[in-house]
């Protein structure tokens, strides 16, 4: 066996195989899922290690090279996101498995696990894929699994699932139209081939515009974010965590892949500024709305809209000449956001379980059973705001350096104002913990410590990401997509 190919093969096949297993034998769900999650996390760590050691590599599926065949592309960016998926996937599975059974937020527990594993498999397939149509199929896998998981919460979540489904299907259809145009122009679907062959002309520009529009819709970038808060706010906690942390990041990942790959010649100042302004608007608008929310999970959901705005700042900064620090900073920020946001949603899930309600004013009082969750919430908040030495700080630091180097003081200001908003709304949430509250909710003894621990481990990872700055820098430099 060629050692380096085993990692992607495991990451691709194991979630799907486990999904089939738990579909056929629902009774084995929890052990199979947790076992597979552990193996997947190990495989992702290993893949990251291999990338660090020997750089990016490509695997031709079926031995067919592009343009005929499909390839897998393993580089720093995809390895980092695979690892993020595995971390959030494991923590979410642990959280979901250890919630108290009678209070399950899921209507039909038997189907949670296959859907969860299918979502994981779709995400891994997406991060590995180097082929634009393969990406589409993986995106649809992710979409349907997400819809199923949101809909599991029942009631009004089904309406949210419907809106999400419509938005995401529209996004992938528009994306596919762009893919068709590219295929007609270049007879290639492979990212690397397109990167080499792309020219600046009308067809390519239209294709780029369409694919970007579709992906902006999927990444819930302002003003196409309308579907996100309800869907992420109403889903079961573990589902909200993976949706906000990874599924949105998948759309963003593709945007970055395309604009730093095939479409790089098209990234002029105009396009880049437009994308940057969208990001800036998202930061401000999402931050403002998060500040106005009265329910904990909705606050966190709006925060996702706001935080992904930062990611788009990479485009104007890169176009202005600071491609390297901007790229590293934005990707780091997305990774740190993923870990922190998943931690926030899991912590919120545990807190809401404890109090039986998620209105902010009712979360105070006796915090036994939710202490760990609040600690996790605080640490994750620190990373999201960007306090040193967390991952959030590192990302913002690199972005700020890119802004300073290119004289982009407007983008720097956005960064600062956005940080202010983040601090304000998270402070509001944390304040709720120490208020005197009414006595309600369930017996804290029935809440497993694993709930809080799952959130805490993710929050600590987000914080520790800042300490891993040198490794992260090397990792993100590996690969054809990395600029500079």
């Amino acid at each position, binding site marked *: 066996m060629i050692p380096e190919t085993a990692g992607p093969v495991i990451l691709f096949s194991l979630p799907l195989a486990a999904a089939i297993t738990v579909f056929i034998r629902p009774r084995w769900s929890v052990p199979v899922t947790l076992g597979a999650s552990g193996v997947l996390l190990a495989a992702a760590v290993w893949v990251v290690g291999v990338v660090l050691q020997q750089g990016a590599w490509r695997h031709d599926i079926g031995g067919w090279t592009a343009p*005929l065949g499909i390839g897998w592309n393993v580089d720093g960016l995809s390895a980092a996101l695979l690892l993020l998926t595995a971390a959030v996937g494991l923590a979410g599975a642990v959280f979901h498995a250890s919630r108290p059974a009678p209070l399950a937020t899921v209507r039909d527990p038997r189907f949670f696990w296959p859907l969860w594993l299918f979502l994981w498999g779709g995400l891994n397939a997406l991060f590995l894929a180097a082929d634009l*149509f393969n990406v589409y*199929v993986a995106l*649809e896998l992710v*979409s*349907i699994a997400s*819809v*199923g998981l949101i*809909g599991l919460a029942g*009631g009004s979540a*089904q*309406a949210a*699932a*419907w809106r999400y*489904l*419509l938005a995401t*299907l*529209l996004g992938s*259809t528009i994306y*596919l*139209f762009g893919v*068709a*145009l590219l*295929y*007609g122009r270049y*007879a290639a679907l492979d990212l690397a081939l397109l990167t080499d062959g792309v020219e600046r002309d009308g067809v390519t520009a239209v294709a780029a515009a369409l694919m970007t529009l579709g992906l902006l819709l999927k990444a819930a970038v302002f003003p196409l974010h309308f579907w996100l808060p309800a869907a992420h706010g109403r889903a079961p906690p573990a589902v909200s965590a993976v949706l906000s942390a990874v599924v949105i990041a998948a759309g963003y990942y593709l945007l970055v892949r395309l604009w730093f790959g095939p479409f790089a010649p098209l990234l002029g100042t105009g396009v880049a500024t437009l994308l940057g302004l969208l990001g800036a608007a998202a930061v401000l608008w999402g931050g403002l709305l998060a500040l106005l929310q009265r329910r904990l999970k909705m606050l966190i959901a709006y925060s996702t809209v706001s935080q992904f705005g930062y990611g788009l700042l990479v485009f104007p900064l890169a176009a202005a000449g600071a491609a390297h620090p901007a790229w590293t900073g934005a990707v780091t920020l997305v990774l740190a956001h993923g870990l922190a946001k998943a931690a926030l949603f899991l912590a919120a899930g545990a807190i809401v379980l404890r109090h039986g309600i998620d209105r902010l004013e009712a979360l105070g009082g006796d915090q036994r059973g939710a202490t760990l969750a609040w600690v996790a919430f605080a640490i994750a908040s620190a990373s999201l705001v960007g306090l040193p030495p967390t991952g959030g700080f590192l990302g913002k630091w690199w972005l700020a350096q890119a802004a300073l180097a290119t004289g982009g003081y407007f983008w720097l200001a956005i960064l600062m104002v956005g940080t202010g908003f983040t601090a304000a709304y998270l402070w509001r949430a944390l304040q709720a913990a120490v208020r005197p509250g009414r006595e309600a909710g369930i017996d804290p003894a029935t809440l497993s410590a694993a709930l809080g621990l799952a959130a805490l481990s993710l929050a600590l990872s987000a914080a520790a990401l800042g300490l891993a700055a040198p490794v992260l820098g090397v990792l993100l430099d590996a690969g054809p997509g990395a600029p500079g």
Partner: protein
Amino acid sequence: MVYLSLTGVLFVLGLHGLFTARNLLRRLLSLNILTTSVFLLFVVMARLAEPLDNVPHAIVLTGIVITVSTTAVALALVVRIAGRMREEDVGAAADTRGDVE
């Protein structure tokens, strides 16, 4: 080619229907027409290529199966949502034949 224009027309019709229709089922139909226009673009491209290119055919076959899956999920959701609305509003079931004569 006639079909290339058809692609554009269907794309606009689908998009227009998706944004203006207020009925859930109608939006789904519009989305399906939008998807068909994308498939049509792929196949027109295959036809224009010399010699005939079979890769888009396989791609569209895959796409059709995916579309029927998403449509089925969407329809199941619509029916459940409608059912839930019905439970909330049993009294308003006076004219049950809103759509079919």
